């Protein structure tokens, strides 16, 4: 058996380990082992590739230098970013990794098309697809990361002519791809396609609002996977096809889950988000403004201290205020006192799928207390207090009625708890721009304060009662 065959068996084993590694991610207890297995497989596959490259012996000295220096620089950058990132900034980092993955895939296709003369459709077709998907992902992910980081406005950015540009650009890269497939040697077609795809990535993500970011990140992850699979077709490497499509289908499923959790179609999100004015906010209830009942920290603390079951409903407001540790501390105080505590986590809480769970895990919340929507909803009627922190649209009972911007969106049944406390800075609207009926419910108390400050006050007040 020659080296090339051996290396391909190693790739096959690595692909199997990726599948098993992802499979182990279905339980918090085994997930870390799964990641380690996957990382080990990747290391072996990379080592095998070095062996293959050395064995073929066609690599130049400059090629070795490029391989080693590029690898070291990239590894150092990745290591630094991964170690330093704050958990609230995780979505930006994942978005950046999507960008570089897609960028690398596109560069591979560009390189191959530049190098091979008279490439057949077997290379030029996946090559063109790779360039389009990879370049769109690269620039799109950079814009998404910029939005999440606050460098680019998180609000939907719509400039005059944006819609027509978003029709024109896909048409031109379909044309460019066909041109490139027919004339793989044309440099104009190649560079033109790269430029158009990069531009399209920007105009695609700019108009999407911050609330839709979980969906966008999942979708870009799926794109990167497909770009890598296309690079696999270009290079005729099945390992890239397998790994790329595994990621692509996982990204696809998460995209669908996120979109369903918001009751929005993926197409609807890509065309433009909440707050662009095209989904008209429901007319606010007519007549006098409804009354809300403000409460103080002491009022809430009494309720919490004498409850037997408390459900916390964390939303992005909690993450933005970096108050997950204060919430964890308060919860611990209550559990230590024998009170049943759980967290109701809506699928789109946070800025990427499952982000809230990571933030709570960081605050040492036992994952057994984290309940998903379907699991916690039947428990709300038994809850003495539901404490909502920075979640708005996902708790709004009007979603159950037709005729408004969030109709049909699955929500947490917070209004069914015996009493409700909402920590919020003001009566401001959520992303959907509609009034939340929960706030005017007679059993709801509004605790107007910053999440971090409010939770610290609650903790102090509760410890007076239980201490």
């Amino acid at each position, binding site marked *: 058996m020659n080296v090339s065959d051996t290396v391909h068996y190693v790739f096959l084993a690595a692909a199997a380990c990726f599948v098993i590694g992802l499979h182990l991610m279905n339980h918090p207890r085994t997930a870390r082992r799964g990641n380690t297995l996957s990382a080990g497989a990747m290391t072996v596959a990379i080592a095998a590739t070095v062996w293959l490259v050395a064995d073929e012996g066609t690599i130049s000295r400059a090629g070795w230098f490029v391989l080693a220096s590029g690898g070291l620089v990239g590894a150092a950058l990745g290591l630094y970013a991964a170690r330093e990132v704050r958990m609230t900034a995780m979505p930006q980092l994942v978005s950046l990794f999507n960008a570089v993955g897609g960028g*690398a*895939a596109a560069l591979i296709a560009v*390189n191959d098309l530049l190098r091979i003369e008279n490439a057949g459709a077997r290379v030029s077709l996946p090559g063109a697809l790779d360039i389009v998907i990879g370049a769109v992902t690269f620039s799109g992910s950079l814009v998404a990361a910029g939005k999440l980081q606050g460098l680019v406005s998180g609000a939907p950015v719509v400039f005059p002519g944006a819609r027509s540009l978003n029709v024109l650009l896909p048409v031109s890269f379909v044309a460019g791809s066909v041109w490139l497939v027919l004339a793989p040697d044309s440099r104009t077609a190649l560079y033109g396609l790269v430029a158009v795809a990069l531009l399209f990535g920007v105009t695609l993500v700019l108009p999407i609002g911050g609330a839709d970011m979980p969906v966008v990140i999942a979708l870009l992850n799926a794109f990167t996977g497909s770009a890598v699979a296309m690079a696999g077709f270009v290079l005729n490497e099945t390992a890239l096809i397998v790994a790329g499509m595994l990621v692509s289908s996982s990204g696809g499923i998460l995209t669908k889950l996120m979109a369903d959790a918001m009751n929005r179609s993926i197409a609807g999100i890509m065309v433009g988000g909440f707050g662009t004015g095209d989904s008209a906010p429901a007319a606010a209830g007519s007549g006098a403004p409804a009354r809300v009942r403000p409460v103080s920290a002491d009022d809430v603390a009494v309720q919490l201290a004498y409850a037997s079951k408390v459900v916390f409903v964390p939303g992005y407001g909690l993450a933005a205020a970096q108050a997950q540790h204060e919430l964890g501390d308060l919860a611990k105080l209550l559990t230590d006192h024998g009170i049943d505590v759980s967290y109701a986590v809506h699928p789109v809480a946070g800025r990427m*799928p499952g982000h809230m769970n990571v933030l709570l895990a960081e605050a040492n919340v036992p994952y057994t207390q984290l309940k998903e929507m379907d699991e916690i909803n039947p428990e709300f009627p038994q809850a003495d207090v539901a404490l909502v922190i920075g979640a708005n649209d996902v708790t709004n009972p009007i979603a159950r009625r037709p005729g408004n911007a969030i109709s049909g969106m699955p929500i947490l049944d917070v209004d069914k708890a015996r009493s409700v406390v909402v920590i919020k800075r003001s009566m401001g609207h959520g992303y959907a721009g509609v009034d939340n009926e929960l706030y005017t419910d007679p059993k709801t108390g509004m605790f107007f304060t910053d999440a971090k400050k409010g939770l610290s006050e609650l903790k102090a007040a509760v410890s007076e009662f239980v201490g």
Partner: protein
Amino acid sequence: MNDLDLLTAITVFVLSVLVGIEVISKVPATLHTPLMSGSNSVHGIVVIGAMLIAAESDTWLGYGLAFVAMVFGATNVVGGYVVTDRMLEMFKAKPPTGKEVRPS
């Protein structure tokens, strides 16, 4: 490259999609962020492609493209696995505290 290669490649492509769907749909929402980050590192396998083009480059443009692709791919692999591990470390099972009934 003959047609059989293409057919094999497409077979692998389709089966990978199905395996991906089957494996991923069982992951609970709690782990969706680590899952996405973990699958992010899997697509870092693109670094192997970058290594192969680095091995075949023979022009300055080729070397330049290969270098950038290497940097991107290596960032993706190393960063992806390290950050996923960091997240999953936080999901360690913690012993439940204070399950005793509160004295009334």
